């Protein structure tokens, strides 16, 4: 039953994509390595390498996919103060180690991120070195161009990975996360420019001072980003503990959350709505915590009282969530996740567009996952059978558009 998990797993193609990125990035790094520029490694280069790793440690997640770090500051600065070699080397070697062993991401993610960083950095260094830009040079125009190129490569590589591993479309990752990512890097570019100017006035001392000062400034951001993941993990743990009352639905809440998110992305909902759905899908059955396990597991023939208890659970769920600040926004969706499109559902008998779109999505995701899961009294239906049932009831129980969106999502996997 636990291997009966989510219908979408593209681990394989995500891994292949990650490895391919790394291979291309290795080639690009070797090509971009500035052999022509004289270099005798010294203590400053070592400092830059360490600062690069520290910057990488400040890692902040970006919705809907990807992340930003502070290492670009060190990368840009290294090139601007005339040490492009250490920039290429750090970008090629450090990210994989820090992402895997310090930030403890999965191998797929670590590989994809390392490849992304090395590839983008190689392009950046190549553009800067081939045009031989030095500080106080009138051709400074190259620097902003190289920064933008760097960001674009990162966004493209990351967008591909997000699509393969989480079904996020490039258009939606560009629409929401990209602006933030671009602004973040532009800010770091301005800061790097400032540091390189101070460097020419004061000396190398300012480089570590500025990098560490900025790392401190961003540290709360890193804490929030990590805590957000931990909070979500503990919510999903609670959801799973409730699911465990019925061993046949061990992964149900997580699946509903994941399917709802994918439907929402396919329907191009805003990231705010996606976040609500992620939490709403996860906790939609939290009200069952008070319903006895025996009723939940009962195959059929509930008594009237038992039915009442079951029908009460969306309201109980919503009431549990409402007082908690960060869950309140999803409570409304959970309350109405058993309303039917024709008004025959519960608890409020809403119909059509009066039902929040998020609730209509959870209803479809819930039904799909329930139908495809094995039960003690019947085997789970196949994907096609489940879709046929959904289509049959579309317009009465389910929203036609949501069912269509689910079909679209399933086509990819």
């Amino acid at each position, binding site marked *: 039953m*636990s291997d009966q998990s989510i219908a979408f797993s593209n681990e394989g193609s995500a891994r292949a994509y990650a490895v391919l990125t790394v291979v291309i990035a290795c080639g690009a790094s070797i090509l971009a390595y500035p052999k022509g520029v004289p270099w005798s490694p010294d203590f400053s280069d070592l400092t830059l390498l360490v600062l690069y790793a520290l910057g990488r440690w400040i890692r902040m997640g970006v919705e809907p996919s990807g992340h930003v770090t502070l290492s670009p500051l060190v990368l840009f600065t290294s090139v601007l103060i005339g040490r492009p070699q250490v920039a290429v080397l750090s970008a090629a070697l450090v990210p994989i180690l820090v992402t895997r062993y310090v930030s*403890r991401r999965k191998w797929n993610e670590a590989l994809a991120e390392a490849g992304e960083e090395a590839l983008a950095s190689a392009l950046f260094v190549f553009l800067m070195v081939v045009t031989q830009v030095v500080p106080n040079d009138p051709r400074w125009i190259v620097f902003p161009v190289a920064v933008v190129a760097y960001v674009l490569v990162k966004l493209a590589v990351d967008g591909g990975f997000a699509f393969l591993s989480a079904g996020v479309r490039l258009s939606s990752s560009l629409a929401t996360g990209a602006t933030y990512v671009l602004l973040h890097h532009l800010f770091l570019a301005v800061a790097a420019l400032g540091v390189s100017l*101070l460097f020419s*006035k*004061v*000396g190398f*001392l*300012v480089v*570590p*001072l*500025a990098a*560490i*000062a900025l790392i*401190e*400034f961003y540290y*709360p*951001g890193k*804490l*929030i980003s990590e*805590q*957000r*993941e*931990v*909070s979500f*993990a*503990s*919510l*999903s*743990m*609670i959801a*799973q*503990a*409730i699911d*465990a*009352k019925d*061993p046949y639905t*061990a992964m149900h809440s997580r699946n509903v959350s994941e399917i709802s998110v994918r439907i929402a992305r396919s329907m191009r909902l805003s990231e705010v709505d996606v976040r609500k759905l992620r939490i709403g899908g996860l906790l939609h059955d939290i009200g069952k*915590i008070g319903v*006895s*396990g*025996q009723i939940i597991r009962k195959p059929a023939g509930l008594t009237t009282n038992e039915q009442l208890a079951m029908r009460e659970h969306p309201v109980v769920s919503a009431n549990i969530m409402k007082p*908690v*600040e*960060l869950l309140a926004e999803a409570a409304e969706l959970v309350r109405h996740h058993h309303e039917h499109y024709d008004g025959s559902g519960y608890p409020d008998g809403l119909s059509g567009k009066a039902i929040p779109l998020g609730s209509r999505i959870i209803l479809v995701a819930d039904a799909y996952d329930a139908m495809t899961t094995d039960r003690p009294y019947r085997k789970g239906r196949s994907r096609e059978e489940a879709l046929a049932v959904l289509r049959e009831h579309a317009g009465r129980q389910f929203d036609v558009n949501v069912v269509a969106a689910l079909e679209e999502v399933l086509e990819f996997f």
Partner: protein
Amino acid sequence: METLSRGFQSYVLSVPLIGGIVLLFVSGKFQISWWEILLFMTLIGTASMLPIPDPRGGYITATGTLFYVLMSVHGPVASLVIAGSAYGAGAAVSRGWYPWRTIFNGAQMGASVGLAGLVFQLLGGFTGDLSWQRFLVPFVAASLVHQASNNFFVAFYFSQLRRAPLLSTWITDIGDFLWSNLLTLPTAALLTILYVTVHPLTLLLYLGSLPLQRRALLLYLQQRRLHNQAIDALTVAIDADFPQGRGHSRRVADTAMTIAREMKIPEVEIEAIELGSLLHDVGIIGLEDSVKTGTPEAQDDVTRFREHVTIGADIVRALPRRAIWEIVLYHHERYDGRGYPSGKSGNEIPLPARIVAVAEVFESMLAGGFPYNERGRSFGEAVAGIQGESGSAFDPQVVQAFTRTVDLGTIGASREGSRSR
């Protein structure tokens, strides 16, 4: 305030007095323009009214950073006057106007910052030459002197007020604040460089960043609170389903943490041990009622009951700490390899799980119920029960640490406390 001793009153008065005398003697000219004075006064005053939550607890203000810029750029005399009056004014606005306290606070801060400025100059510090020898080293030394002196004034104040021992309070304070003081130095040094080479008004950028930091940290603390509430709620749900009843998970966590501290396990790991012990029986939620309430007699029920460790491990797998998962999965393994679910033995069982195994059995013996007798054992019997299984059920090293904590009274004490709740 009537109860203050005469000695204390004279101390409070003497600090500003000494400050004034130092000021007279140094009587150096102010080489600082009126608008720079205004800038620092405003910034320090504002910063002292903008406390920023520290993730490790308490609040910090950004005044320290500004003091270091001030003392390195403008020397001891200007530092003493500006830091003293601005800090006093800020304290008066944010915490109310109590003449003696405001004046004392301002004076001690002025004296500390002035002293730091003096040390900076004596060590050859010079902001015209921003090298590490002539700038950074004196800068760091001056900041340490500032901290030590500030901690001394405060420790002395409290030693008079609450009769706390002066020297040990002072040394503890220095240790407690050292790390956060060192962390302000890169920013302070950078701001000094910007102040000198670019423009004094760059300090305003820094002031502008403070509300951002404050907001970010408040958000973080809010999220952490939510997380803790979620874990607490789940713990209550686990215990409600369990024969040993309310507080069992919490008591196991307290005992496991005490043993772990005795074994000198790093605090980060202890945090994971706490969470792991709170959740060690989370899989019980997934068991049928017949299995978890009654005494299991049928072989089927025993087998099913044993599944709670694997069900639980599946549930906590989403949490980012591996130790939590290990504790939930392996807390019923035995040192001699006869436990479940995988029959691991000795050091194959992760240490956190070996610790929680001892804590779990100890608490269950005291509480009584399945699989022990109904009434529960006495404290001494339970301790003997654990020691008797050293090397068979339990890791001898963990049992040794457990015995030490019992001898020291730490476990006994925490037991009494938790029982009365």
